[in-house]
Structures are given as C-alpha cells and as structure tokens.
C-alpha cells in the first residue's frame, strides 16, 4: 500500500485552518482516500516540512507564501494557496480535489 497523503493547512492562528483540515479529512474518508490533514502555523511548518506531502496556505497568510514556497521547494513538496471559493465555503471536498491535483503534478 502506498504512503498516506500528509497535508498541512497553514494559517497564523490555527483558527480556521483546523476547521478546514477536519473537513478535508472527512471528505477523504468518504472517498476512501488515505489522507491525514493537519493544521498549523508557519513557524511549525518550518520545522516539520519534510514530514508532509503537500502544503496549503489560507488567504490571510498569503504574505507568507514566498517564505513557505521556499521551504516547500527545499523539501520538494508542492504548495499553493487554498482555492478561494473552496475556502469561502469551507468546502473540504473541493480542497481535497485541489490537493490531489497538486500531488499529481
């Protein structure tokens, strides 16, 4: 069996990201996808980046994208901003699609 997908959703407060992570986790469960979604701040991510398969940033920490991208590149993991509509709607299913798309590339 292949490794589980390890996703981290980043914001600076952990407030919305943990909620969103739960939703993505649920969506994955429904689709029978082996995924583990975490939420975290960027400081944490810096330390543990290598553990993850993919990273997403929430819009309110968009200013950190440059920094996060650099860390992600260094660890060869894809990263992107959470799709705006999916974020606005807290749509775990759609974010899951985005995650799968990023990994495939």
């Amino acid at each position: 069996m292949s490794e589980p997908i390890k996703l981290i959703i980043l914001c600076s407060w952990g407030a919305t990201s943990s909620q969103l992570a739960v939703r993505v986790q649920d969506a994955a469960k429904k689709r029978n996808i082996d995924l583990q979604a975490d939420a975290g701040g960027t400081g944490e991510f810096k330390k543990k980046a290598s553990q993850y398969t993919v990273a997403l940033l929430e819009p309110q920490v968009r200013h950190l994208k440059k920094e996060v991208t650099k860390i992600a590149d260094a660890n060869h993991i894809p990263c992107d901003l959470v799709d705006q509509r999916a974020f606005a709607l807290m749509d775990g299913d759609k974010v899951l699609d985005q995650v799968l798309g990023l990994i495939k590339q």
Partner: protein
Amino acid sequence: MQKIDRIYSSIMKQSGKWSGGFTAAELAAYFQLDRSTASRYLNSLAKKNKLEKTTGKPVRYFCPTLTDHDKNFSQHAIHDKTSPPASNTIHFSEQIDQHFIGADESLKMVIEKGMAALFYPEQGLHILLSGETGVGKSYLAEYLAQIAAAKPWNRIKAPFITFNCADYAQNPELLMGHIFGIKKGAFTGAEKNEVGLVEQANNGILFLDEIHRLPPSGQEMLFYLIDKGLYRRLGDTDKMSHAKLILIGATTETLESTLLPTLLRRFTLKLSIPPLRERTHKEREEFLTYFLKSEAKKMKLPLLIEDYCRKAFLKYACPGNIGQLKSDIQISCARAFMRHLQEGTEQVTIQRNDIPSQVLSSMTRNEFEVDHKTSHLVTSGKSSGPLPIQTIYSILAKMKKDANDDNFASSSENSMKTAVDHYLEELKSLSEKRLESEPSWVRFIDHDLLDALRDSEFYFKDDFTFEYGSKQTIAIGLHLEAFRQQSSDAPRSSLPDLPMAKPLYRKAAAKLAEFLQNRIQLVLPASEIELLAHLIASTTIPENKREGGVLVFLVTHGRSTASSMAEVTNYLLGSPIIHPVDMPLTEATGVTYKKVRQFIVDQDGKSGILMLVDIGSLVTMGESLSHDLGIPIKTLANVNMPMLIEAGRKALITENDLETVYEASRQAFFALAPKDQLPEQPKEVKQRLIVTVCLTGEGTAQLLHDWLSEQLRAEDNDVAVRAIRIDPVSHDSTMLSTFQKQYHLIAIVGTVPVAFENVPYIPALELLRDDGHSRLHRLLEVTRPLGAPYQKEKTLNDQEMRELAPVGLGKIVRHLNPVSYAKIAFPHYERISTFYQWDTETKLGMWMHLGSLADQIIEARLVHGPDPAVPDELKELDTQVTERDLTVWAPLFADLESQLHLSIDLHLQHSLIVLGKQQKSA
C-alpha cells in the same frame, strides 16, 4: 572513426599549417574543441608516439617526419580547400605582363572608375566589388592594385594584402584576430603579439574577399578604421593602433542584406562586375583561349581542341561564370592528358568525351557530326619559368614513367586513375559551389533534361514575348520527367482532350518541343505539345494582372521565415500569390501591424483576406485589422507548408470566396503527412514558469523575482515566478527538473548561467538594458497559450465573496451568527481594505479569520475559560500598531461590542491589526 583519429588525420593532412608546432589551445581553437579535450587528445597521441611534444610550458606538439612527408603532400595538392587560410602579399614587377580580358569592353567603365577611386586625392576611396560567384572579383582587385602600383605617379607604396574572410568564418574570434592582430596574452595560447592584416597593409591596399562573412562587430571595427584610421588589436585594451589604407571589399551577396548599413556607406565606390553571360562573345573566346594556353604551358606538350568542343565551351550556360569555365576546361584537359598517356600520342587532343556533360548539353548531335573531325592547335606561349606547383600532368607523367621502368604493372594504371579522380574531385568541388543556391527539387529532373531546359531559357528568353525563366522550366521539367518515366514504364494513358491554348503559348510549346527533340531526342506527341502550351500558359501568370480574389498574407516571426516560405510556395504555384510579411525578433508588434495594414491598403483586398500566421500576438492581429479597416479577415495560426500551398492554390482562382480559401487551408493542416509523423495532440496545458537564479537564491534572484512579478502583463498573469539558488560549483539544480514536471519552464533569468534542457537563459544584465526585456517579452508572447489558456480559478469578486463567506463560516462556527456578523463587519471591511489595499482574497481571509476568532472568544466566555492566545509568530514581529491603525479598526471593534456584545481583548486587537498590516507587503 573516432573523433581523435579524425583530428589526427586532419593534423597530418595539413601538417604544413602546424609545422611550427602547436599548443592545445591553438588546436582547440582550430577544431572548435574544448581546450581540456584538445589537451587530452594531444597527450594520448603523444603517448602513442604519433606526435612529438616539447617540455616546458605551454607544451608544444609537433608532427613527426614532418619535413619530407609534408613537402610532398603540399606539392601534390592543386587546390586544397581545407588548407589553412593564408593571406598573400603580392609584389608586383614594374611591368604588367598580363592582358586583362574585357578591359577595353565590358569592364572598361568598371576599371576606369576603380582607378579613379584609387588615385583620388589624399588617401584614395574605398571600393566594394559585387558580383556572382566566379566573375573575377578578386582578380579585378589584384589587377587594379597592379596597375596602380605601376603608374609612375603612384603614391601607394605598400603591399597589396588579400584575404578571404570565409577562411575563418567558423571562428569569428580568430578571423578578427587575423585581420586586426592579436596582443600577447589576449587569450590562452596567444604568447606573442601577432601582426594583423591591417598592420601589414598600412599605407597600402587591403583586399577582403567575401567581406559579408565578417561578424557585425568586425564590420564595425572596419568602418571605425576607415573613419578614424584607428583600430584595436584583439586583447588590446589600452592602446589604439593607427593605420591608413584603402579597403577593397568583395561580396557575392546582396549588399543591403549582408553588410551593416554604416559600413556600406563607407564604401564610396560600389562596382558591380557582370556575369559571364553578359560579357561579349569575343571576351568569352579570349577566356577560353587564355585558359587553354595556360594548361598547355603546364603540359609542355602541343594541345589541340576539336572544333566541336571549342564551340561547346563557348556556348554552354555557365552559371559559375569564369571560375567554372576555368575548372571545366581544366577537367577536360586532365582527361585528355590521361588519354594521351594511355594511347601514347605525340600530342594532347581535347575530344567530346573529355568534356563535362553540362558543357556538352548546349550542343546538338548535328553539330557533333559536322565539327568533331577538325581540331585546332592551341598555341602555347613561351613557358615562363618553373611553375609554383606540381601540376597533375607532371604527376601523371612521372607515375607513368615509374610504371614503365617497373615493367608496367596494372596497379599503376589504377593509381593513375585515382590520381586523376582525386584531381577532378577537387576541381569539381570548386565549381559546385553554385549548386547550393539551386532549389533541391531540381534533383528530381534528369540531368540531360534539366540542362536542355536551362539552355532553352537562354535561347528563348528573348524570343518569347512573355516571361520565360526557371519558374516555367522547372514545372515543365517535372512534368516531362514524369512523361518520360511513364512512357518507358507502361503503355501511355491517353490525355484528355484539351481546349486550345492561346496561339502565343502554342507557338512557344512547338518551338520548345522541336528544341528538345534536337537536343535530347525527346519526341513529344501532338497532345503533349498541346499540354505543354497549357503548362507554359498557366505558369506564366503575369504579375499584378490579377484582379479581385482573396488575398493571402503570411505573417511570421523571424527575419525571413515568411519570405522564404512564400518564395517556395509562389515558386511552386508560379505566381506571387502569397504576400509575406516578416516580423524580425527586434520588431515591435505595432510596427508589424502597421506594415501589414499598409500592405492591405495598397493591395485593395476588398474580397477578403486570409492571414496565415504562426504564434503569439499575430493570432489576434487579423481581428484588429478587420475592425480597423472594415475588411473581412480570417486568421489561421500554426501555419505550415501544406496550408500555405492550399491557400495559394485556392486563392489563385478569383471566384473562390474567403470562406472557401479559409476552409481549404484549414483542412490542409494535417494533410500530406502520415499520422505517425504528425505531432501529438497538445497535452494538458501546464502553467508557465520563469525561474530566477543567483548563487544564494535570495539576493539577486529575489530582486528579479519581485521585479518580474510586477512587470508581467495582465495577459501573462498565469505565469509563475520562482527564485532559486544555483550551486556555484556544479551549476546544477535538481529543482529545475522538479519544476519541469509541474510547469512549462519558459525562461531562466539571473546572474549564474544555467544550461537546462532547452530553456533559454537570460542574463540579468540583459533585462536591465533599455530595450532589454524584449527577449523575455517575445518568449512570453510565443508561449502564451492559445484558445483555452491555463487559468487559475477565476478570481473571486467582492459580491461573490459576500455571498459565499457567511455560508462557509456557518459551517465552522458554533456560537456566532454568521449573517449578523456579516451585516456588521462587511461595511467596515470596505474602509479597512481600502486603507491597507487588500484585495478580495485577503479580505476574505481576514473576514473568515475574525469570524472564527469571534466564535472562539464567545465559546471561551461561555465556559469561563481564557481567551484564545496570540500566536507566537505575531508576537515576534516588530510591526508597530500606530494611532492611524487604531482609528481605522476601532469602529469595527466598537460595533461588534455594541451589537454582538463581543469585546475583543486589546492584545488580540493588536495582533489582528498586525496580521492585517502584513498583507500590504504580500
């Protein structure tokens, strides 16, 4: 053969060049190798004792047994094209011993003007000679210098230096060094000062043949030299050298397209030398006699030529001009001499079989019957001393003699043949240059037919009242070739009845048929002659006679892509139906637009225009033009030859409307090619990426990243920019391969040159120059996706955000009513986001964030727990919260408190403000 062996044999063949020994650097420059590779080869050759080497630095290598081997070798070579470039200093005797053919006739004016220029007061004028290959440009230059030197009032004391720029054309550096001189230490291996041609020609004349082969930088140095009398040796940074000379340049190319306009203007006198076909008959006879005589001199035997052969030499179309005439005569003489050796005759006689076929093609069988009996003696002039090179005749005679002494072995006959073959091969390679300019499809036509048709051009050009040239003869040739093959393979299928062509063309066809029958015994039935008339008529559509009909424009990137493609198509279709517009890379789209627009206006394209284009902005140009001019214009992108030909074919018929031409051309896109040779259907479009690089990935790369992100235009908003570090040692970056998988990598920009697959590298300096980023713009333009471009999810607009966000927030909060929160907060967000210049996405993030935070505060109060903590990262930041910030945010906090009874702790307020302030810099 391995590369090392090839290089070795090449060194041995030209050991004369290397007689002074050579270093690895020199070898590397000559063979265009990497220096370390060259050094490795040399060491390995020295180990095998194939080369000798010196001790000390730099190490020099020598060819062993150099002396004898080398001498023999160079004596045998008559024309060694690969021999190292050499410039000649020619010292003239007081007297001019040659008569210059045409000096009183075709070239009278040219020579008079040339003389006048050389003797023009003060310094003389610079001269540019032009003319087809083989017309005698260098010969004329030499002649001019010679008579100039002989005049008693001559002021030009110094030598006449000649050089052919083509000799070093593959290595511009060396070429420039040779002309302008090299300063010691200019590069590794330049261990002494080298005197350049300019210095040698000081106070005299420098003749540069094939001057168009000089790179633009060299041309610039030349005109600076002409203007100021100053130049700089290669590697000389502090000193300019002085020289005063007359420059004579020569070129076979069109002047305007190959020389820098600035240099072109410096040549006060431009002389064009006529091709052989425009010289008088008498001159041609003189040339023939002159060349025969000089061959006779070399043979030291009586040389005779049959009348028939003489006539052939005087008549045949000789596109390579005097040069070709000379080599054809030499080939004939060599063959005749060979026969003389085998048959043991007293004299050498040039007969029909000795002559190259292209020379014979001008003669009819009749003429052969009448003339081949009589031959004339070529009176050879007095032999004037020993010749500088060993001729083929003496080589052969010696071989023959050796063989006789040796009881004549059959092998010697073979080696004699080999020697002659080798000789002929060399001569041929000299005359074959002219074939390069001929379109390759003439190869489909057999030589006899092709030659006959070529000559027919010559004979009938003036006879026919319409234009008759290669355009028609190629078409006729292809057809007749098919006709011949068909008639020999199988019973001929009969031709359909044709309506009669115009009398003009029928008469021409009859004449041509008669000519072909006489010449190559090709008998054409009446129906074929009728067809021929049609063929001539249809290929002879006079220019500009077309009225109405769809116009086809071909607009593509590149200096001559469009004109070249159009040339082929127009040639095939026999009519200038395709109008090419070239768009050089340096030209702005706006300029091209104006060119095309003017073109359309001039051509009056009322019936509609089909624009065939390649890529980029050209794809949409037609639409803009259509609006602009009110003319129907259709565009097809990714143009290829089948499309172009089909468009041309259909547009030739003026009744076809735009739709018909367009559809036909469109469908031709995949025509003519087998499926497996067609490109794959485009895969999923990847996002485009520009990578910026520097040694740290943070300094310059980051600056470039920010600058580029800012510079990208709206239509390129799909382009991502990434800054990365390039390892200073390996120059390799695995990151790039990672990117390649995910993105369409369009350029690498930075301060460390990176060679990664085919991705162009643009130095940062280039971007900073005035028009610098034009290359990048061009790259962006040509990679811009067509039709369905890659697009990030369409950005959210404000209205949408207001509708969606409360729904999403509703899903994650437990206590807060998202709708009332929205009602209170959104009006405030207008003011705040304007102040901090947030875009919709940031607004959304901040809104959700505050919503979620508010919910957590309410929850904390309900369970009497502590308020949510301020994250460490925000605490660490030294962003200050100012009075101004507070004024902007305060009304929102006030409203939340008064309407939702939600008081937010001051620390949390501050951290929220700081988070919001950060956004501005994103």
